[in-house]
C-alpha cells in the first residue's frame, strides 16, 4: 500500500533557474491524482523528480514510509508511462513488457504468467510478437501501459500519456485508464496514480483529485467538482472549465459591481459570501452560468453567435471587455449580431477575486 508525500519539494537548475518552489502534496493510497497546468508550470519536472529521473534540489519525496530522494528510479517502486511511449525499438512487445522483470531475474514461469495477465487485461495478446514500429499509436500506448502494469508498482506515474493520440482514441484511452485504475483498486492492488497532463478535460474526467500548478507552485488541490464550483483563485477559475470563465475587472462598492458605466446589483447570497468585502475586484462568471435577463444585469453587444445544436455560444462586448455566454439554443432566434442583450449570473455561481487573484467570495465551510 503506498501513500505518496511530497514535502517542500524544490528544483533549482544549474543555471540558477528555480522551477519548483517548495511544493507540498499528499496523495492517498489508491488515489488518482492529476497534476495539471499550462506548459512550463513544472508539472513534468515534479513528476520526474518523483520518478528519480531528475535530481531533487530540496525537500523530500516519500513513497510509503521511505524517503526515496537518493534511490535509483528502479528501486523506488514506481512505474512510468511516457508521452511518446518510449518502447524499446529493437525488442518485440513481449520483451518490452518483461524487460524490467528480466532485469530483476524473475523466474521464467513468473515472467510468462505476468506477461499473459497484462496482455489479457490490455487486449494486446495478438501484438506480443510484433516490434514497436509495427504498432499503431493506440496499441503502442497500451503496450507502454502494460510495461508499467507488469511491474506491480506502488505508484504509477503518467507523463502526458495521451497527448500523441488523436481525439477519438484519447477519449477511449481515458476511459480505459480510469477503468483499469478502478479494477486495480477493487482487486486490492497498489493503484496510486500521479497523472500529468495539460488538458483540463483529462484532468476533470480522470482525477479523484486535481492539483493545479502554475510557475512551479500549487494553485489548488481539490476534487473536480470543488475545483469547478469553488476555485481558490482567478488562475484556477480561468484554467478549469471550457469555454473559460469570464473574468471581468471592475470595482465592488457595497452591494454593486461597477464595470465601465454599467452597474450590476449583486444578489444577496453573493453579498453574504463576500462578508462586506469591497475594493478593486474581478468578477468571475462561467459562460454556462449566464442567463438572458430582462431586468437587472450586464448589458452586452453581440459580436458573434455560434450555433452548436443543443446550445449557442455567444460572444459579447461588455463595456469594452470580451465576454462569452453559453445559452440554450432556444434563445438563438433573438440573437443577432449587434443586438444588445442583458445577462445576469445564476444564483450562487458568481465569484469575486481580489487584486491578487484570490477568491474572496468562497462560502464559509463548517
Amino acid at each position: 500500500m503506498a501513500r505518496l508525500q511530497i514535502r517542500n519539494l524544490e528544483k533549482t537548475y544549474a543555471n540558477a533557474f528555480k522551477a519548483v518552489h517548495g511544493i507540498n502534496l499528499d496523495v492517498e493510497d489508491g488515489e488518482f491524482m492529476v497534476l495539471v497546468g499550462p506548459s512550463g508550470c513544472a508539472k513534468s519536472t515534479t513528476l520526474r523528480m518523483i520518478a528519480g529521473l531528475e535530481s531533487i534540489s530540496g525537500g523530500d519525496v516519500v513513497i510509503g514510509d521511505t524517503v526515496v530522494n537518493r534511490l535509483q528510479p528502479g528501486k523506488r517502486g514506481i512505474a512510468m508511462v511516457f508521452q511518446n511511449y518510449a518502447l524499446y525499438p529493437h525488442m518485440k512487445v513481449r520483451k518490452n513488457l518483461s524487460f524490467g522483470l528480466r532485469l530483476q531475474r524473475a523466474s521464467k514461469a513468473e515472467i510468462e504468467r505476468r506477461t499473459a495477465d497484462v496482455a489479457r487485461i490490455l487486449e494486446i495478446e495478438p501484438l506480443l510478437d510484433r516490434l514497436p514500429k509495427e504498432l499503431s499509436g493506440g496499441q503502442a500506448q497500451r503496450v507502454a501501459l502494460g510495461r508499467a502494469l507488469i511491474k506491480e508498482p506502488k505508484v504509477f506515474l503518467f507523463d502526458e500519456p495521451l497527448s500523441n493520440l488523436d481525439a477519438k482514441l484519447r477519449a477511449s484511452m481515458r476511459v480505459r485508464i480510469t477503468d483499469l485504475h478502478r479494477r486495480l483498486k477493487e482487486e486490492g492492488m497498489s493503484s496510486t496514480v500521479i497523472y500529468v497532463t495539460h488538458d483540463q478535460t483529462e484532468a476533470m474526467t480522470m482525477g479523484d483529485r486535481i492539483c493545479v500548478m502554475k510557475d512551479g507552485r500549487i494553485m489548488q488541490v481539490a476534487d473536480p467538482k470543488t475545483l469547478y464550483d469553488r476555485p481558490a483563485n482567478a488562475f484556477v477559475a480561468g484554467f478549469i472549465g471550457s469555454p473559460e470563465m469570464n473574468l471581468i475587472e471592475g470595482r465592488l462598492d457595497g452591494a454593486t459591481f461597477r464595470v465601465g458605466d454599467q452597474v450590476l446589483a449583486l444578489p444577496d447570497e453573493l453579498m453574504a459570501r463576500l462578508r462586506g468585502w469591497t475594493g478593486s475586484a474581478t468578477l468571475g462568471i462561467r459562460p454556462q452560468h449566464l442567463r438572458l435577463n430582462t431586468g437587472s444585469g450586464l448589458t452586452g453587444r453581440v459580436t458573434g453567435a455560434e450555433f452548436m445544436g443543443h446550445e449557442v455560444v455567444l460572444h459579447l462586448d461588455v463595456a469594452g471587455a470580451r465576454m462569452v455566454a453559453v445559452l440554450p439554443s432556444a434563445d438563438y432566434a433573438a440573437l443577432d449580431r449587434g443586438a444588445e442583450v442583458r445577462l445576469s449570473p445564476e444564483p450562487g455561481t458568481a465569484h469575486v477575486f481580489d487584486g491578487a487573484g484570490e477568491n474572496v467570495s468562497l462560502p464559509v465551510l463548517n
Partner: protein
Amino acid sequence: MADIATAIPAAAPAHEVRAARLSAFVRYTLLTVVGLIMLYPLIWLIGASFKTNSEIFGSIGFIPREPTLEGYVKGWETSTPYTFGRFFWNTFLIILPKTIFTAISCALVAYGFARFEFPFKRFFFATLIATLLLPNVVTRIPQYILFRDLGWLDSYLPLWVPSAFAGDAFFVFMLVQFLRAIPRDMEEAARVDGANSFQTLIHIVVPMLLPALISVMLFQFMWTMNDFLGPLIYLSSVEKFPVSLALKLSIDTTEAFDWNRILAMSVLALLPALIVFFMAQKYFIEGISAGGVKG
C-alpha cells in the same frame, strides 16, 4: 485563379521535350565517361594482373592478349618463406582485435560524453575534438618512443592498444553525434525498469546505436586494411607482416620487379575490403548519413 492556370502549361511543346531528352543524354554520357576515367586504373589493374610481365608495359589496353594466371600463382608464393596466405592471416590478426576494441571503447566513451554530466566535460570533449585536427605524423615519434620503452616493438600491441582506449577521436565524435539524435526516453524507461547505466548501455543504447557501430567497424576495417605506415614503423619481422607491407616487400627484394605478381596480389588485397563493403553497404551509408546529418 488566373495566375495558377497560366502557370501550368497544358502540355509541353515538342521542342521542349526534345531539348529535355538531349540534355539527359548529354548528362548521362558525361557521367559515364567521367566514371570510366575514374575507374580506369582499377579496371587496368585487374586486366594487367592477368598479363605477362612483358605485356604490361607494352600496351595501354586492359584486355590481356594472352591471359595467364602466372602472376597469381607466383605472387602467392612470394620470394619469402611464407605464402601470401600468411600475410592475409597477419592482416586478419591485426584487424579483428582492433575493430572489436574500437567498437567497445568508442561506444563507452561516446556514451559517457553524450549522456553524463561530469566536471570539465566540455574541456575534455574539446580536447578530444582537437586531436582530430592534429596531423597523425605529429604523434608518431612520441608514440614510437613510448612503445619502444614498453618493449612492444615488433609485436601487434602498438597497433591494437590505442584502439582499446578509444584512440580514434573521429569514431567517438561520430557516435556522440549519433547518440545526441536518439531521444533519451528509452533510456529513462530502462532506468525506471531498474536498469543501471551499464545495463542501459548494453540492452538499450547499443542496439539503437548498431547502424553507427557497424559503420565505425567498417571504417576501422578499411583503414586498418590499408594502413601502411603503422605496420611499417612497428613491425620488423617478415613473419608478422600484413598484406600492405608484403606488397611492398615484393618490390624490395627482387631486382627485376615482377609487376604482374605485384598487381595480382594487389587485386587480392583489394578484395576483402570490397566484399565487406558491399555486404554491409546498407548499414554503412545509414551510419554515415545518420551520424553526419542528424547532429
